[in-house]
């Protein structure tokens, strides 16, 4: 293992019914993904307030990913549809401010998609690692 390898901090919000179960399945099948991915359980992806995403960045996260049930499969019938709109607009806004769009992502992952979960986390971590540390969201204001 390289000593100075940059490890980005990834916060993953997972809905209880599909994606969190998908993450559990990845575990059951021993499908590995980077340990810098930390999962927070929420009842539904629609519980994720844009403020949580921003807060994660504020506190030093390098990437934030939301996982929920596939559209149409939401345990609460419509929660992820709201998530989809909220995050589409939020991510577009972050991009508009010049923040790298690769740092944010929404992925639908069912309870049966353990492999997809692990693969998504691998890809996302790789993409964020390629960007390096998240500086922009921290110093948008401070002009050097």
């Amino acid at each position: 293992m390289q000593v100075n390898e940059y490890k980005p901090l990834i916060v993953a919000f997972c809905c209880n019914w599909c994606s969190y179960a998908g993450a559990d399945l990845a575990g059951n099948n021993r499908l590995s993904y980077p340990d810098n991915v930390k999962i927070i359980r929420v009842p539904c992806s629609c519980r994720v307030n844009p403020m949580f995403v921003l807060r994660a960045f504020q506190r030093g996260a390098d990437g934030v990913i939301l996982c929920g049930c596939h559209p149409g499969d939401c345990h609460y019938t419509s929660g992820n549809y709201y998530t989809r709109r909220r995050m589409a607009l939020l991510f577009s806004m972050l991009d508009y401010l010049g923040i790298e769009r690769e740092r944010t992502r929404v992925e639908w992952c069912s309870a049966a998609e353990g492999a997809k979960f692990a693969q998504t986390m691998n890809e996302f971590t790789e993409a964020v690692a390629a960007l390096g540390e998240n500086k922009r969201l921290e110093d948008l204001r401070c002009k050097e």
Partner: protein
Amino acid sequence: MQRITREMLTSKAISLLNDGTVSAVLGWREGEFSYDLTPSLFYTAEDIEQNFVFNDFCGANFSKYLVTKTLGIEGKILAFLKPCDTYSFNQLLTEHRIDRSKVYVVGISCDGMADISKIRAITGDGISSISCEPDGLKVQTIYDDEPKTVSYEDAMAERCICCKSKKHVCYDELIGEEGEENPDCNRFGKVAELEAMTPDERFAFWRGELSRCIRCNACRDVCPACTCEKCVFNNPNSGAENKAPATSFEEQMFHIIRAFHVAGRCTDCGECSRVCPQHIPLHLLNRKFIKDINTFYGEYQAGKEVGSRAPLVDYTTGDLEPGQVFEREGM
């Protein structure tokens, strides 16, 4: 120059006050400077005759004042609303923030308001008085002997140049001519310009703009969509409380969260940018959301119809995925 005159408004106000239709009038009063008018309530004909002002500096959006001013008052308040103000007024009705029966809306046509910073850029600082004359604004500064003339065209606020609608979406009575919606107003021009930049350029642009923020909260306090009983930024349980920012990040958080909170509810009245003492073009954040909403989910104008369902409390099963946001733009 406004085609609506002060006299048209004062005579209407006085007659409605006298016949008991309304018990107070929301209008403009002279502030510290002649171009700095203050929204104010008038209760008597005498007060109106002496102190009511109407000119090209009446840009303030009255709708927000009605949220609190209608509360402790018997009878109705007369509010003079420009076309853009009526959108905010309707939006507040949609959100049950104003009791419609407490307001008598007199729609007034608008020819675009003046922006003092544009005038200042022409005449320089030290403006002591401005008078609105038919051939332009006569601006007297403390450094000049003679007043300078600034044309209305040169003085017109950016938000009025790309005015989205001269049509009132709500009124009890109209003064002046009713106008039309202006779908070709190109109000998203600057947003598109920013979108076309590279992320680095955009980042540099916004860093330059937002670094000036002094977190005075004026944008929030003037915003007609920000009428919360308690703002999240003042609420210790919201996780976003910060009256005075502790870190630089919090300014950006503030502006992003604020823009997101009003997304789908913002009528694009432009008050945030008007009152910003640091001249941060905050409306460009709101307009980005409006533009995105229009592109992603179909045209939506907040406040156009009372009771309309805002895009963020609505969905269709075929909405685009957050990942497609960028594919769509071909970026």
